[in-house]
């Protein structure tokens, strides 16, 4: 009895860390131990009326043969990317990651987001070439085979399209899944050759301040990258989560610029030219320049700033009755490591610090989790991230004050503006239905 009294005290004081049911994670763990103790003493839930267990058919017969390259269970068919251009019409195409159906921090290769501007090229890896030239001492040509013999390095890095979360510029919350809102970001382990190693071999003329990276795809997509970034942590990536790059992610090689907007991470990379001035290619002069409320526009935004969103629960889900839930989400910053994530269940009136899943890596997805006892009433769930440089994810009001919003809801697949990183809010109604709200 004394124990149970302790537990009541814990419930009222230690467990509650913020309003509307947020619970201290350590208290939850401690409570689990108490449960275990109680069960060993024979005070478990009543078991009367349960159906006796029997063997199901799959337990009574030999299963299917294995496949050389296995794919997920047929029961997981709904876990797939959504396509903006399934019939490959003559325009760009996007495939968005279903974050609401995933956990952890690694995006499976088949579900990594991709955007292509002229279809996915079929590149013969034996014929592919990468040349580095321009303001160098010795222009050099590399093959996939020769690059594979260089010292390889691996790092986990998120990749995010500069236009991810664009529907959030809507003046009203668009009722869309986290996949539709935030599906143009993914995270993988990339393995390849540091670009600085190759530039050491070509030599760099000190006049070179930029490099132009160009792909072997039909638009010959090209972007300008500061040499400063190239010498910092840029990589020629050859592998994605341990296997060769997926075709849509740049096979057989791509530029990886950790923390910088996806479009700069040029896929199907075939040419790097060192130059004094940026190219102002169509993608940097037009597409990835963002109109500001005062009519001017940002150029060279590059950085994907600190951001987080809750993946569970999220829009389109329905909670099945009051009780214990674990709020789960993703945080990341192009500046470095995630320092902390705060979670609110009352629309930002009170906050509690979420648990971060180790390891917390620089410029990578960090999974955060927060125990929550839903009382069955209305709740507004939010997450807010800080990075190690002290950058904080803005509230929606702060973001809109700086960057503006649209006058009417845009097409959900459109990109009316870019680099949106404010808090996302999910409203839980009395019946458990989860909506997208602004709070």
């Amino acid at each position: 009895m004394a124990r149970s009294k302790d537990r009541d005290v814990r419930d009222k004081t230690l467990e509650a860390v913020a309003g509307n049911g947020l619970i201290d994670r350590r208290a939850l763990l401690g409570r689990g131990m108490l449960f275990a103790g109680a069960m060993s003493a024979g005070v478990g839930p009543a078991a009367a009326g349960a159906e006796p267990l029997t063997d199901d058919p799959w337990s009574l017969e030999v299963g299917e043969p294995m496949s050389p390259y296995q794919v997920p269970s047929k029961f997981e068919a709904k876990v797939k990317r959504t396509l903006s251009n399934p019939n490959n019409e003559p325009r760009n195409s996007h495939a968005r990651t279903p974050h609401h159906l995933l956990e952890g921090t690694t995006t499976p290769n088949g579900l990594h987001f991709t955007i292509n501007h002229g279809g996915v090229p079929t590149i013969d890896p034996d014929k592919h070439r990468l040349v580095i030239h321009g303001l160098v001492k010795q222009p050099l040509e590399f093959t996939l085979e020769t690059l594979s013999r260089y010292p390889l390095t691996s790092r986990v890095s998120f990749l995010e399209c500069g236009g991810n979360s664009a529907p959030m510029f809507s003046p009203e919350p668009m009722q869309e899944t986290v996949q539709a809102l935030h599906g143009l970001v993914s995270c993988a382990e990339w393995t390849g050759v540091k670009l600085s190693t190759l530039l050491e071999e070509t030599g760099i003329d000190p006049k070179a301040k930029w490099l132009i990276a160009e792909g072997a795809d039909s638009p010959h997509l090209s972007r300008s990258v500061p040499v400063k970034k190239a010498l910092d942590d840029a990589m020629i990536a050859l592998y994605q989560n341990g296997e060769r790059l997926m075709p849509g992610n740049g096979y057989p090689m791509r530029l990886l610029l950790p923390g910088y907007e996806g479009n700069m991470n040029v896929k199907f990379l075939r040419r790097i030219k060192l130059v004094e001035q940026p190219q102002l290619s169509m993608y940097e002069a037009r597409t990835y320049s963002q109109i500001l409320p005062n009519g001017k526009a940002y150029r060279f935004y590059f950085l994907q700033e600190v951001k987080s969103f809750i993946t569970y629960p999220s829009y389109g889900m329905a909670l099945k009755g009051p009780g214990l839930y674990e709020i789960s989400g993703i945080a990341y910053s192009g500046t470095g490591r995630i320092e902390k994530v705060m979670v609110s269940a009352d629309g930002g009136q009170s906050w509690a610090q979420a648990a971060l899943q180790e390891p917390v890596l620089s410029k990578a997805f960090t999974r955060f989790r927060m125990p929550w006892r839903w009382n069955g009433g209305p709740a507004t769930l939010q997450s807010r991230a800080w990075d190690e440089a002290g950058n904080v994810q803005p509230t929606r009001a702060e973001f809109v004050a700086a960057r503006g919003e649209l006058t009417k809801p845009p097409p959900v697949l459109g990109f009316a503006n870019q680099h949106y990183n404010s808090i996302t809010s999910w409203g839980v109604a009395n019946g458990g239905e989860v909506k997208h709200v602004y709070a």
Partner: protein
Amino acid sequence: MSTPKRAIFATSLLLAMTVGASWAETPHLGKPIDEAAIANWDISILPDGTGLPKGSGTPAQGAPIFAEKCAACHGDNGKGGGAAAALVDDRQINGISASNKTIKNFWPYATTIFDFVRRAMPFQMPRTLTDDEVYALTAYILAENKLIGANDVMNAETLPKVKMPNRDNFIIRFPDRI
């Protein structure tokens, strides 16, 4: 050949070679290649005109090429209505929506038109236009937008000098990262 330039270059290389023993430790498997051998791939045009090839074109020369190879997606005279964006458009920037960006009201440099058309267009047949055709199409688009005169010739000299109205309206977001 300017001697001081070469001297500085040589000094910096020497410096690079003496910094750290890693120079000798990398595999050196890259195959030396001449700029001449890269020329067919070297299609980057800078805003000051660096990289622009020989050749020229006028709006009048561009009009029939546009009708044949571009209008199906960009609409008659580039006014839109097809699968791709309008190229000739008098709309103004209004609010923060990118849907109001046009060549005339947003693109800062005319060289970008040449660069993009040559590398990426026509969408189904990239790299099939001659340099003269790309100059002519660039001239046509600029003239239809009244950014150059109807008889102006576009070439490596004249194209970089086209003053685009929005050129000075950009803010570098993170200058310390450049």
